[in-house]
């Protein structure tokens, strides 16, 4: 299959990437765009390690084809904060709560939580648990991750009010 130019917005920048349109989007992001923060684990949309946002909606990039990014706004963990700038409240809260151990799932959880907080700025525990059940963590345990998301939500609300 000949390569094509696929244009989309990647973490706020317009990009034009030459790729095979039927390759997994996760591959394109990791290999052509160099975003190693997009982790690939299960390759079947189950574990959520490769979660990105597409037009603000969470998606498993391992189960999307590159062509499906065309014309869309793709957000990855790499766009959460820029080098030398403050961390995103979610990143700060994850660090403070030690909400990761091996780190394989962390980028996916951060992106999923970003989508959650965009829709539910004041989520209750049940909503957080429902959303986070989309992704799999096998070492940290969900308690610390839920606590981190609760704290990040509070930080983001406070930032908005300031």
């Amino acid at each position, binding site marked *: 299959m000949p390569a094509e130019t696929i244009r989309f917005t990647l973490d706020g920048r317009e990009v034009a990437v030459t790729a*095979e349109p039927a390759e997994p989007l996760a591959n394109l992001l990791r290999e052509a765009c160099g975003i190693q923060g997009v982790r690939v684990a299960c*390759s079947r949309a189950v574990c959520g390690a490769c979660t990105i946002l597409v037009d603000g909606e*969470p*998606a*498993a990039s391992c189960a999307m*084809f590159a062509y*499906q990014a065309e014309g869309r706004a793709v957000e990855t963990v790499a766009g959460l904060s820029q080098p030398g700038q403050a961390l995103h409240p979610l990143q700060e809260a994850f660090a403070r709560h030690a909400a990761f151990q091996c780190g394989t799932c962390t980028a996916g959880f951060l992106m999923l939580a970003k989508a959650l907080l965009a829709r539910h700025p004041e989520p209750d525990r049940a909503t957080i648990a*429902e959303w986070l*059940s*989309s992704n799999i963590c096998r070492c940290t345990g969900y308690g610390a991750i839920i606590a981190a998301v609760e704290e990040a939500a509070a930080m983001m609300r406070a930032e908005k009010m300031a």
Partner: protein
Amino acid sequence: MRASAHGLIATTIATAPRAELRRAASVPEALDLLALPGAVAVAGGTDLCAQYNEGAQPARLVALDAVEELRGITVAADEIRIGALTTHAAGSTSAPLRAALPGFPEAWAMLANPRVRFRATIGGNLMARRTRYEMSLLLTALGAELRFAAPGGGVVAASAHDLWEGRIPQPALLHHIAIPRRRGARFTYQRALRPQLTLALHLHDAGGLAAIGTEWLRPVALPPDDDTLSALPGSFADPVISHWYARRAGATLLRRAREALDAR
């Protein structure tokens, strides 16, 4: 990596030979493309990736994204139409659907998880033909029709049962799902015993229908009366649940379903 992983572990989209991508812009074009050898439709892609892991190696992918006709929910006087490309997220939050068929969007919202729901479509859920996917059970209880695009234009109707039996037109392009509208319709889905057993109940002024299913068994339609579970075919048993258990637990789910509808 692609080469070295090949054969060592399950093939994935990343390691399988790359398919040719064809983009359909209309229903007739999609039908033409799906008639090509080795062609498969792509809606959200969330099940297709699992098919790759199971060894599928489609030669051609037919992207349906641009076929606008396959999108949207319309509520008419006699039926509700749900386009095959409607995502779980869109369907489960549709206000017109909620007004027309209380309980159905709530049941739809139980499927999968928030991350999957934004991409996965009703058409993909049905056409994947996996007993553990629940939409065919919900639609069985609703007496819905699956309408497939016909080569000369128009649609060909099939039931959820026909889909399981493979009695659908080829090439198969699911166009929309049609749910007949009934006066006094209400719907509930009892899923607490999933994956062992789930039950949907649809009641309306003129009667209704129940549907029961398991992770491994095709859904079965049953009359919604007190004797419902005695109509369960003897073949309804799988490696996890016996027929006896299905009848006992099914009766409990039916009672809960009735209570849920009475409480509304």
